[in-house]
């Protein structure tokens, strides 16, 4: 068992003919992910790495009714439309890799997805992997291995760093979820934690946070309230970032005094979470709580 993706996951790749879509379709296939179809409007009839391309999700599903998950590589200006298409087609999971979607659009489609019972992961995220079963994302597959550690993360590259470090220490992962770095995302820390709480395979959780926002504080609150009962360790990126400066993506901006490094660490430690000073301390902390 694991969460969100696994052996039953059958994927349609939206934006499969683009540079990233095509490249990562290849890598996902190599990883063993079941990809049944691809979609690019106007490119229906073609093939990408042996995967048939359709003009619409609807047409793809007519031929491949087993599809239950979409991964979206569609460029930002058209990405919302692709997400709606996937939701309306009844898919239960939509992973949005695309970066640069206006936040008002994300606001709307994440609310819509919720009303339709679809889980959206992202946007601007590396995706979800259940090592050895399915990779629905852009993460380098070889840094992961299967085991008892769940990971939920706001930062793509730090996720790889920490997973790699865990793997090297023999600490495998149940499922790794990169929720994305945008201000509004479809799946939050606490929502992912609800899933990990129910997953019997996950015995410990790594939270990878970032300065800005209040998602780490909410995770801490959930733990304090006893709604997440498994051991948790955490790493927060941006300890030394100067306040008020935009550090790369929108998620990592310290403003209005909200969500700075100290506040997050304090909240987590109060909830009994060990916070690592750098990614390479994580395996040691995990070993201790397992």
């Amino acid at each position, binding site marked *: 068992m694991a969460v969100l993706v696994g052996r039953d996951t059958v994927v349609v790749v939206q934006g499969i003919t683009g540079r*990233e879509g095509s*490249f*990562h379709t290849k*890598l996902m296939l190599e990883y063993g992910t079941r990809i049944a179809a691809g979609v690019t409007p106007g490119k229906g009839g073609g093939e990408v790495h042996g995967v048939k391309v359709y003009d619409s999700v609807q047409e793809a599903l007519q031929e491949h009714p087993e599809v239950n998950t979409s991964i979206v590589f569609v460029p*930002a*200006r058209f990405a919302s439309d692709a997400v709606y298409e996937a939701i309306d087609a009844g898919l239960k999971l939509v992973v949005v*890799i695309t*970066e*640069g*979607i*206006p*936040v*008002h659009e994300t*606001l*709307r489609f*994440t*609310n*819509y997805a919720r009303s339709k019972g679809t889980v959206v992961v992202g946007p*601007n995220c*590396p995706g979800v992997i259940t090592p050895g079963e399915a990779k629905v994302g*852009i*993460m*380098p597959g070889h*840094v992961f291995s299967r085991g008892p550690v769940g990971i939920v993360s*706001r*930062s*793509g*590259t*730090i996720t*790889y*760093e920490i997973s*790699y470090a865990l793997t090297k220490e023999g600490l495998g992962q149940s499922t790794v979820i990169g929720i994305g*770095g945008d*201000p*509004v995302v479809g799946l*939050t820390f606490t929502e992912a934690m609800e899933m990990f709480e129910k997953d019997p395979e996950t015995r410990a959780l790594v939270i*990878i946070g*970032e*300065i800005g*926002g*209040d*998602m780490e504080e909410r995770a801490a609150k959930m733990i304090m309230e006893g709604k997440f009962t498994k051991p948790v360790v955490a790493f927060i*990126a*941006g*300890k*030394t*970032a*100067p306040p008020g*400066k*935009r*550090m*790369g*993506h*929108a*998620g*990592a901006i310290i403003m*209005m*005094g909200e969500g700075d490094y100290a506040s997050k660490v304090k909240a987590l430690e109060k909830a009994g979470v060990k916070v690592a*000073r750098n*990614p390479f301390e994580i395996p040691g902390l995990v070993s201790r709580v397992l």
Partner: protein
Amino acid sequence: MKLYEFEAKGILARYGVSTPKGVVVAKGDDVRGKLASSGLTPPLVVKSQVLVAGRGKAGGIRIARSVEEAVSLTEFLFDYPIKGLRPRYILVEEAVEHSSELYASITIDKSARRPVVLASLYGGMDIEEIAREKPESIVRYHVDPYMGLRGFEARLIAKKLGLKGGVISSFASLLQSMYNAFVDYSADLVEVNPLTIVGEKVVALDARIIVDDNASYKYPELAIERVEGGEVSEWESRARRLGLAFVELEGDVGVMGNGAGLTMTSMDLVYEYGGVPANFLDIGGGASAERVKKAVLFLLEFPKAKSIFINIFGGITRCDEVARGIIEALKEYSGKPKPVFVRLSGTREEEGRRLLEEFGIRAFDNPLDAVVEAIRAAR
């Protein structure tokens, strides 16, 4: 993208918000002519249009008793830097006599995934200050993005605030106008602070709109050149023109990474191992060799960086593309040589590693090793 006060007021006025009568003077305009023909009645408020907070305290807002005085104050303010920034525009407005200053804004509550209205009877200071000094005065109201802010909701907010009589509906109209502008302009923030009440009418004395950078392409009419932020350094504005996410810092170790999290962590590692980063530079996800080359060249030329630590863990970013970009930058760079320490892991790591090593650069597997070397080399 932050809009100037006069732009924000212009937008809100089109949505029916009352603003003081005023005129915008651009650098190079005939100030005297423009003010003389404006028909404004003194006393006037002369406001430096800079995109920084604390403009008032920094002397950017002046009162003129006559048009003549407004002319000289306008000329004065054009040459009066606010936090290092000289304005390109000055807004001259009729002063509105007022006793009350209220606060209203609309932004996104990221956790709730909902637009949120914030309002308080205690405006004139910024929302953080209100939150500190009068936390109980702040009314928060979440809006369903599919329904918008409806009249009865806006009136409920006004009533919760304690407003009475006809002001309720004019304040409610203000909030609805702000909300509509918020949606139509894909805004991160629409703020009117302060606003005041004249009779039963609500007047916006100051206004701020921040447009989501990801959506700014939808508003070509806003594409005037704007200098954002209080203290954008020369290198930061140069980076902005190149499209690089770059922040200048105090130290001497150049830092470049892919992804904000990894790049910030790379900075954190520099500090942890006793160094001080010269900058933050995130090449983002899926950078092409061309983009990497541009970023590396930028750091090679950036004088503060005595050595360069490049930390790449490829996901959507491909290590071979990064390697190619680094090599091309080093080939093209003709300045004083700078030591570069590259850590490469992740997607296409073997190919990237091979390319770098063929070119004679060591590719580290462990970023800690690279950091330590980079700090040492910078000394």
